[in-house]
């Protein structure tokens, strides 16, 4: 399968992929700690963006509640670690289970009762906000004052417990991003991927052609929410603090999707490219407006830039770059 993907890609695309991968692998040795911290956030958004894109970009189901899956993954693994000493390498399975169960519950309600499009998106928002309110009242999880992971001075990196240096977190999220990319590329070029795209394009026509809509939409939600939940585990152990009032918010969900929207919904490189454009852009604007006591200015310019990109490249940046760089494959395969 990997062989098929490589075979169907153009030499230029493969060269580009190799260069980018190599650069990312050695980046921690070349950049200072500030740039590294930005790269870490870039990769986090590339990862969760990829997971979200699987649902809308591949299967055509719009979620505006992916913060729920991040939060469930984060809270589950963090609580298991803090309260019971369960290491995240084990807690991750519970985290995935929580996210997938929530995703399947939302999916079941939406798909069984034919709640489509924006109404489905509203359902995802409702679940995320609602769960946030519940967690806000569970004192065992720190309620509104937040859940904190113990931060000790680490002598060495402890991968199993996800305790260590930013460089370790960088490589973990890089590995996750690479894994999500490989998985999505494999899925997209499989029966599952073709069925998803058929559903995305025209679900009645897909159904008439033998596609069981409910089953394939549920698979999409399950994989997307599970992947996102894994991102939540990383998030909890990287940031060490979780607050319901920010975690479950729709603004978090929007941040997850914006990279894909800017990079190109439905493409494999879109979420990654989008994260590499948006996160640094936000950082630059923060730096530029630093000390100016103009709180709204950053958000305004950021929104302005995003709107401009979406306006001038409505398909996202990736399809455009793809053409400009001449990365078209010999045949078949997905970009």
């Amino acid at each position, binding site marked *: 399968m990997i062989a098929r993907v490589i075979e169907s890609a153009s030499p230029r695309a493969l060269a580009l992929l190799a260069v980018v991968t190599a650069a990312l692998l050695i980046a921690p040795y070349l950049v200072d700690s500030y740039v590294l911290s930005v790269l870490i956030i870039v990769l986090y958004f590339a990862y969760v963006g990829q997971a979200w894109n699987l649902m809308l970009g591949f299967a055509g189901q719009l979620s505006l509640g992916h913060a729920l899956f991040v939060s469930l993954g984060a809270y589950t693994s963090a609580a298991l670690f803090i309260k019971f000493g369960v290491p995240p390498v084990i807690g991750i399975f519970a985290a995935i289970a929580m996210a997938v169960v929530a995703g399947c519950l939302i999916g079941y309600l939406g798909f069984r009762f034919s709640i489509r499009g924006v109404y489905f998106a509203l359902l995802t928002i409702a679940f995320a906000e609602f769960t946030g309110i519940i967690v806000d009242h569970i004192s065992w999880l720190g309620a509104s004052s937040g859940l904190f992971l113990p931060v000790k001075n680490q002598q060495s990196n402890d991968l199993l417990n996800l305790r260590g240096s930013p460089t370790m977190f960088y490589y973990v999220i890089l590995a996750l991003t690479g894994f999500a990319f490989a998985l999505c590329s494999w899925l997209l070029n499989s029966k599952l991927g073709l069925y998803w*795209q058929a559903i995305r394009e*025209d679900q*009645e*026509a*897909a*159904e008439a052609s*033998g596609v*069981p809509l409910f089953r394939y939409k549920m698979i999409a939600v399950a994989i997307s929410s599970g992947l996102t939940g894994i991102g939540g585990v990383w998030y909890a152990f990287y940031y060490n603090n979780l607050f319901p009032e920010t975690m479950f918010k729709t603004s978090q969900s929007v941040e997850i999707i914006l990279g894909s929207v800017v990079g190109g919904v439905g493409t494999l490189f879109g979420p990654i490219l989008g994260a590499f454009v948006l996160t640094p852009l936000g950082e630059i604007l923060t730096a530029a407006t630093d000390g100016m006591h103009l709180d709204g200015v950053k958000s305004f310019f950021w929104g302005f830039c995003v709107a401009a990109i979406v306006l001038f490249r409505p398909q996202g940046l990736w399809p455009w770059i793809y053409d400009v760089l001449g990365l078209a494959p010999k*045949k078949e395969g997905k970009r």
Partner: protein
Amino acid sequence: MSASVAAGSAGALTVRNISKRFGGLVAVSEVSFSVAAGEIHALIGPNGAGKTTTFNMIAGAQLPDTGDVLLDGVSLAGLRPDQICRAGVGRTFQIVRPFNELTLVENVAVGALAWTDDLAEARDYARGVLELLGLGDKKEARPSSITLPDRKCLEVARALATKPKLLLLDEVMAGLRPTETDRMVAIFKKLNADTGLTILLIEHVMRAVMALSHRVLVLNYGRLIADGKPEEVTRDPEVLACYLGAEAFD
């Protein structure tokens, strides 16, 4: 070619007393007919007569208010459209519904995945079906870049790729030039002769109806007003009065 449709006589369709109401409008009213395995029947009638609605009820896209549909003697009641497709009923849409972002091969491969999990096999089969329908040189194109008649062919290809026993064609020859119509007719004749594929077609192009059908069914205001051999039906005074008019038989 590799796209040989499942052989053997199968695909017998029995429609028993089906009706469909939309608010105050009775679109289909207590319609019964059957298509014997291996035969080609045409369903004709003026616009709004209930032909497409009848197809939708057979294919499971709409639930009949009364009656039921049987394929080879087995009721299709309660099955979803994808299950009816896998049971052996392939259908096209009058208003074409291609998967716009997918290539023609991918469009048709979706159909072939109804009987195989192997994507490479589905693609190979899809290529064969596209060749058969004269779209061989446009395999990697996208639906938006081909003509409407070609998109109608694509509808047929996607339905055929599911290896149906019964093929439902909803005005696939509308808008074709006479030579294209003849080519399409020849394809259906050959499929029917070689593989015993049962076909029910909705068609306004009388040239195709007369060339293909063993029997013709006529719907008018949701009621079945005639069911017989083509030459009988076209002489039926009620049919002539309601719909056809002499010029249709030029």
